[in-house]
């Protein structure tokens, strides 16, 4: 597995798209720190980019990478190597390179340009952690979709729709539901609905970390109370980890059985 991981990781390191991704984060972070002058404001703007763009890029990149390396994968499958290590190796390779581009792309300018207080560093690390988890989630989803759909166009469409659903449509349905049942107490519902969607969960927990709870009134207080407890932390982190594990295990299971 490590050999394949190493192979696909170095393969991706040679790809210019990885560098584009890295440079994108670096320029955006440097620009935000430079222009806004305020680190807290820069982190808030980065938040928007992280929770929307990381899922999109991870999904698309995952799909493209999986399809492009399908011939190589088939070649590997003919060798006496365990399927599990081939696919897990590829997944880890892609995840590591994307996560590294993202982490370095933000950290390098932050180290050189940001004059942070300790609290802001903690916020930034929380943001980086969430971004890494989102990368892991959406590359796993992309791989699962790509493996199940041999038709590339169809696979592509499904991947984009998945992203669109989680990033946009889910919230639309959420609002419609809230408006429809506005006469009922909805704190619990909105809490559960938030935890179920990795993008919403990431965004909300980050906003709460950035002290936006005050703006959110009573709901914010309820959320803050939930996410503030160790129980809430545990629930939200395990929700995100489940979002990594679910698609990944599904992917490995399909991969183990699939007739190539």
């Amino acid at each position, binding site marked *: 597995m490590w050999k394949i991981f190493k192979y696909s990781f170095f393969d991706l390191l040679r790809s210019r798209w990885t560098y584009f991704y890295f440079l994108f984060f670096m320029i955006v972070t440097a620009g935000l720190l430079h222009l806004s002058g305020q680190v807290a*404001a820069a982190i808030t703007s980065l938040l928007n980019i992280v929770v929307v763009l990381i899922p999109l890029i991870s999904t698309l990149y995952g799909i493209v990478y999986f399809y492009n390396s399908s011939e190589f994968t088939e070649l590997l499958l003919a060798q006496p190597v365990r399927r599990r290590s081939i696919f897990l190796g590829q997944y880890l390779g892609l995840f590591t390179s994307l996560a590294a581009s993202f982490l370095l792309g933000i950290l390098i300018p932050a180290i050189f340009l940001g004059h942070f207080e300790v609290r802001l560093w903690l916020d930034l690390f929380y943001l980086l952690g969430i971004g890494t988890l989102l990368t892991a989630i959406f590359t796993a989803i992309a791989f699962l979709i790509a493996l199940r759909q041999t038709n590339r166009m169809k696979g592509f469409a499904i991947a984009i729709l998945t992203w669109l659903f989680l990033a946009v449509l889910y919230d*639309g349905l959420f*609002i419609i539901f809230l*408006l429809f049942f506005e006469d009922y107490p909805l704190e619990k*519902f*909105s809490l559960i609905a938030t935890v179920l969607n990795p993008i919403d969960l990431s965004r909300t927990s980050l906003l709460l970390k950035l002290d936006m709870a*005050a703006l959110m009134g009573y709901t914010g*207080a309820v959320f803050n109370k939930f996410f503030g407890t160790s129980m809430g932390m545990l629930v939200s982190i395990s929700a995100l980890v489940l979002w990594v594990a679910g698609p990944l295990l599904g992917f490995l299971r399909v991969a183990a059985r699939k007739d190539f």
Partner: protein
Amino acid sequence: MRFPIRFIIPFLVIATFQTLGAVPDTLEVGKKYASIKQALATAAPGDVIKVFPGVYFENEVIIDKPCTLLGVGYPILDAGLKNDAIIIRADSVSIIGLHIRNVATNYVRDLAAIHVEEARHFNIQDNKLENTFFGIYLQKSRDGRVAGNSIIGQAVVEASSGNAIHLWYCKNVEVSNNEARHHRDGIYLEFSDSIRIVRNVSQDNLRYGLHFMFSNYNDYFENTFQSNGAGVAVMFSAHIVMKRNRFIDNWGSASYGILLKEIKDGIISNNLFQGNTIGIYGESSDRMTISQNDFTENGYALRILGSCRDNIITENNFIDNTFDVGTNATRQYNQYTRNYWSEYTGYDLDKNGLGDVPYRPVKLFSFVVEKVPQAIVLLRSLFVDLMNFTEKVTPVFTPQDLFDDQPLMKPHPHDQYSTSS
């Protein structure tokens, strides 16, 4: 040798006063007198009581004749956690340069460092108050002055703490250059008219930086209200003028730059509102002029409920607020015109400095949040941005008549609030 007559007049005047006994004596506490009470007992009206450095353990020092209590090098008056420190019950009393500390918390009586009861022409100036339950408590008093005092409390719980400067049924008082920290309310007024509150700093108080009710015709100039538990709340008053104040960092789930409730006919201008959960919250407030203020980085810059009518909001700068305006009504009767909105994306073809397309400061999302507060969890969601964008293009849900018909293209250049202090 002849003296010019001009030279002689002052001597004549002094001589006349001396014969009348009107030149004040100076009584020295810490030298001739061991305590302030002793000196007061022998003092004649109009005398000056000089208090020299030392610690005086005295409480309930009652001043019932016109005189001046003058501290030299901040002598300490320690009330020993018993009663009021000083009670003024006469007109024309001055208290200058004392350091008063340790007034007891009492749940029955409002004990204070300096308690002014039904007096006129008082002058409380340059004192340091420390750990006093109430700082300066003015009761049915008028025509006086409270200036340059530093009032620092140790309030932890709202219910067992007092206000730094408390005015009750007062009239024509100047409260200026004071510093009020760590009390329940920084400056509190009830039933007090014609008060001038100028250049005070009210910071880190548990509840309100400034709190008044039923107090009309008051002026608030160049004060700083910062990081107070609930910001500033003002209610049931008319004809107030607030200019060049700073309302900063009042951030919390029940915190406001200013909360206006039943405030009529006032002027709020040239103030800075920065980093507050809600810059100005208006409820049943009518005929206010809100002009030339800067609103930056607030949660809501303005939250004006449907019960507010005939307010004019003009020439303000709204910069980087999460929501510029929030309201719960679909119809509204306030006028928004010629403000600068940093989120305005319109154009100005005729280059007259005014945008050609009206700006609608109420976003669809803030409208949804008014209906279902829980929807706030979707703050900064991509869907919300899309929703706001569509609504901006074709407004359907947000108040039809709430818009700025002449949005400024550049921030309005107005007088800045005081940055000193």
